[in-house]
């Protein structure tokens, strides 16, 4: 029975890794499409979201069956629960990549503000790198790395505040920037939310390693150092 369980768990890991790669690609492409004003690439991101959603559904079915048939405990249970919960967070990240792509399509042809687009590009790269790093930390089961990644969410929070404030300032003096200015605020919010979901993933790595359910608000995790 143990052998069968291990096999099923391996299948679960493979599908989860596949979903991680799909979402990583979605973030990368959504950010690139926004920066390049590439409507075609943005459409591709939206189309490929179906595959991400299917991954989540498959993982839900697989984890439910694993729990029902094998009733895992201890580290096995934590593995299964982590995948179930993390896949839901990853799916939400995929949804934000879609929202970003929709904004890219809708903004096509509107008045653009270069200085804000530079900041959004910075946020996009940062969010993408955080996500790549958290997948790496998950594969390596690296608690310290997870705690460090959660700290990086602060940058996205600061950038969002900065972009919001600058967009409002520009919109107040320049009427033609109102449409794009409001989109910039939305897009920055999507990227900031990706950071929040990455932080959730960091929390699931802590759960996986230590069995503790924690809230990884940056600056509040001193007692979790290994």
């Amino acid at each position, binding site marked *: *029975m*143990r052998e069968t369980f291990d096999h099923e768990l391996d299948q679960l890991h493979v599908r989860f890794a596949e979903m991680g790669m799909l979402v990583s690609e979605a973030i990368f492409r959504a950010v690139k499409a926004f920066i390049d004003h590439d409507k075609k690439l943005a459409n591709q991101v939206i189309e490929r979201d179906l595959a991400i959603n299917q991954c989540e559904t498959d993982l839900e079915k697989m984890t439910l069956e694993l729990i029902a048939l094998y*009733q*895992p*405990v*201890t*580290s*096995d*249970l*934590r593995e299964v629960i982590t995948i179930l919960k993390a896949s839901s967070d990853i799916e939400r990240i995929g949804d934000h990549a879609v929202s970003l792509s929709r904004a890219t399509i809708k903004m096509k042809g509107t008045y653009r503000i270069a200085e804000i687009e530079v900041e959004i590009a910075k946020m996009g790269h940062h969010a993408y790198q955080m996500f790549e790093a958290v997948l790496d930390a998950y594969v390596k089961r690296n608690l310290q790395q997870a705690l460090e990644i959660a700290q990086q969410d602060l940058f996205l929070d600061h950038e969002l505040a900065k972009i919001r404030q600058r967009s409002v300032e520009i919109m107040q003096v320049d009427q033609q920037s109102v449409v794009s200015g409001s989109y910039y605020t939305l897009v920055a919010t999507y990227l900031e939310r990706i950071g929040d979901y990455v932080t959730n993933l960091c929390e699931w790595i802590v759960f996986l390693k*230590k*069995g*503790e359910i924690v809230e990884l608000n940056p600056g509040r995790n001193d007692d979790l150092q290994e």
Partner: protein
Amino acid sequence: MKYILQTQNLSIFNGKSILQDISLGFPKHTITAIIGPSGAGKTTFLLALNQMNPPNYLIQGKVIFQGVDLYQPSIDRYQLRMLMGMLFSTPEIFPMSLYNNLTLVPSYNRKVSYSQLMTEIEKVLRQVHLWSRLKNKLFKKRVNLSTSEQQLFCLARILLLQPQVLLLDEPTANFDSQETFEFEQVLLELKDQLTIILVTHNLRQAARISDYTALFQAGKLIETGKTSNLFTAPQKSQTDNYLSQRFGF
């Protein structure tokens, strides 16, 4: 934490070492499950708690029940066994009426009226969910009972002695799943008046009904803690492997 019963550095030898340095406490009104592979020393440990191990076993360390060391020469082991009732995996009903089975020891030890005895019998049979099934059969010489009914009846026989601790050695080993569920319900209801120590091979049973779990392996206490913690995030890799049934380690 305050324990009603605890062992301190308990070691048992029978030519070879059977248990090594076990320090384990049992909080009042809780169920503690003792789990581990066959030959781990679980039953020996349980028997040591109410002095039922064979006399040639050498015991070191202490077993303290309500502040008293049980291995002092002055301890009356028959009194002790009434305070700490024990149930084995195979129920044993004496070849006499159920009433005589129940009253054998109480009538020997206490002078109580028939009506008082009957009140107490009704109470304990209700506690094990057997009153309605057995109330008209108490004086019959032959009563057919299923294995699980026999076990519940044996439990009632112990409860009539008003024990404070209940020692159970795989009490549901021969039960089907519904019988196991019924027996577990009885144990959960009894927790308010007793402290229960349960040796079981059924890991799901330990997870379902115990407050604390202790894992024994090769005569050693590997890990103990709240059952909810042990089954989600044990501290020792041996516990993780055993509970996840990763054998061959």
